[in-house]
């Protein structure tokens, strides 16, 4: 911030902005944070479909979805901490929270989701395998498995039944928790009455559905990349089903966002002029082109046409893969448009300012890219230690 030339920044303001608004405060880090949490919630909800609604076709990605959620959840708080002026004081939010603050509840929602939901569900899902692996694996992995299984040696069918039941119960608690995790992130923005771009009761719901969209698309992408890498054929029944869910989720998300826009324009409050010029002058590419056209309309058309045209498997794979990538791009843009867009207009409603992203540095583009890639590295390690699919030579696990 010190390096920023004040008069240069002032010159980038079109119209009038309060002086303290000229330099944007929440950087790309705060864009990455809701994007990552959204992927967590979305991946978890996809996994839950298997357990709660018994969607048998999606079983092959169940463990992948859970591990993806965990890998991204571990990194999700990092961008927040990196953004703080005093990261060394961040623990205060856990020790002495001001419970009237939406942000203070973060510690509890996060801890609940990590400890009670994700870790427990993964543990029960893997417990039997951990016992099996601890017998087969070499040092030091066998010890790792033994410790993680909490020295359980139970391979009985009764034990297995208890695990199944526990997973089901946790999933039932997990779905509202996942809704809470990301709905809460939306609430952080939606409850700021000073900012008409953020302040909306729909915000938590829009965040939630965009989270589901991005999570489903991510797991679909990962599965379609990992399966060929493992020399396995892609289970078309599975990806078809995921793509169907994705299709409906995008329609829901699109409708909600459309409702939000229509509502704003129809009410046409005091802020409407500045918000319109925000979209036209500052967010045209990221909102109209990337978020709406590339991130929603094109993937929706692709997904709809493969269904209508009954395309063959190869074409469907290509269509799903392309759509999932476009959707990721679109949802990242959604986060960008909320966080950065919400700071680019003055609360005097009389002018617009500009975000100049750092390249290097703790809050720069490079750091953001590292944070986006880090969960994938963690996921790769997880998948190596805790295989998501039965090893061929060992025979299939009971499911």
């Amino acid at each position, binding site marked *: 911030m010190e390096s920023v030339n004040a008069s240069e920044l002032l010159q980038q303001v079109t119209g009038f902005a309060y*002086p303290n608004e*000229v330099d944007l405060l929440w950087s790309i880090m705060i864009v990455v944070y809701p994007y990552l949490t959204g992927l967590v919630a979305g991946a978890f909800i996809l996994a839950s479909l298997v357990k709660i609604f018994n969607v048998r076709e999606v079983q092959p990605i169940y463990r992948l979805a859970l591990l993806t959620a965990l890998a991204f959840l571990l990194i999700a708080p990092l961008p927040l901490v990196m953004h703080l002026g005093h990261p060394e004081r*961040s623990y205060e939010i856990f020790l002495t929270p001001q419970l009237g603050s939406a942000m203070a509840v973060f510690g509890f929602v996060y801890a609940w989701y990590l400890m009670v939901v994700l870790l427990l569900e993964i543990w029960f899902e893997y417990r039997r395998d951990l016992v099996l692996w601890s017998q087969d694996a070499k040092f030091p992995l066998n010890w790792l498995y033994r410790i993680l299984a909490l020295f359980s040696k139970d391979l009985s069918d009764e034990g297995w039944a208890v695990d199944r039941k526990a997973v089901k119960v946790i999933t039932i608690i997990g779905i509202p928790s996942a809704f809470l995790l990301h709905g809460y992130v939306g609430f952080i923005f939606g409850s700021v*009455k000073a900012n008409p771009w953020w302040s909306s009761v729909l915000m938590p719901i829009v965040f939630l559905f965009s989270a589901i969209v991005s999570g489903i698309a991510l797991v679909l992408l990962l599965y379609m990349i990992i399966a060929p890498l493992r020399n396995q054929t892609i289970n078309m029944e599975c990806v078809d089903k995921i793509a169907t869910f994705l299709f409906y989720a995008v329609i829901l998300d699109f409708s909600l966002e459309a409702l939000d826009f229509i509502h704003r324009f129809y009410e046409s409050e005091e802020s409407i002029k500045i918000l319109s010029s925000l979209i036209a002058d500052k967010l045209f590419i990221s909102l109209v082109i990337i978020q709406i056209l590339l991130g929603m309309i094109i993937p929706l058309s692709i997904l709809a046409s493969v269904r209508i045209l009954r395309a063959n498997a190869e074409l469907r794979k290509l269509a799903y893969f392309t759509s999932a990538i476009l959707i990721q791009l679109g949802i990242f843009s959604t986060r960008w448009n909320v966080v950065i867009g919400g700071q680019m207009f003055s609360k005097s*409603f*009389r002018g617009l300012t500009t975000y100049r992203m750092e390249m290097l540095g703790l809050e720069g583009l490079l750091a953001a890219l590292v944070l986006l890639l880090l969960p994938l590295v963690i996921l790769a390690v997880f998948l190596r230690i805790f295989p998501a699919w039965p090893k061929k030579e060992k025979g299939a696990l009971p499911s």
Partner: protein
Amino acid sequence: MLRRKLLRKLVSLIPLAGTFQAISKLGTAQGIGPDSGHTLPTYGMGIQIDQCIGCARCLEACKTENNVPPEPIFVRTWVERYVIKTNNEVDVSLLGAEGDAAGEVAPRNVLRSFFVPKLCNQCANPPCVQVCPVEATFITDDGVVLVDGDRCLGCGYCIQACPYGARYMHPVTRTADKCTFCYHRIRNGLLPACVEVCPTQARVFGDLESKASPLNRLKRMKKIHVLKPSLNTEPKVIYADLDGEVR
């Protein structure tokens, strides 16, 4: 026996502890203050738009008194210049900043023009206090919203929540900063620096509740308005002769 004695002694100490607490409270919040120590004042500021001549002395005084960073994009108080043209176009610029466009308008095209001093509104219902995750920003018993720089995490949520743009992230301390009504001065019976230096009494300071306060006279003599009343922040900075164009 010994234990019972000890317990009895401890119990007898309880009322004493209460007295200590009462005395210590007297020493901090109740006793000190400009208005003799019975009831606490509710500090407020009145801004008389028609008195402000745009001399910018308040801006300098604030920056000097409170060690506010010199850059014009970090301010505790600022003055906006409004020029409303005959075609009803509104031109707003920042006093003291480069590119002040107001001078370029030909006088015959000007419908009306005025200055608006701005600062933290010291809201009675402050959104910044509501959102602070660690209670680093709080409202004092005499109604001033302050930031505890030793507790602030520097998350910036309060800055986003302020509808008036009154807060900024201090580039050196990396914590949120804002106008304190010069709390170190007013608790010692002095006026805030901006009020002290104002040559036209465009800024009036005092106790909003006291009948003897200059604010009371202002409220009796002028039409009073606050900024963004629809947000229900209940500002304690009140404006006389405020134009409807000001946000």
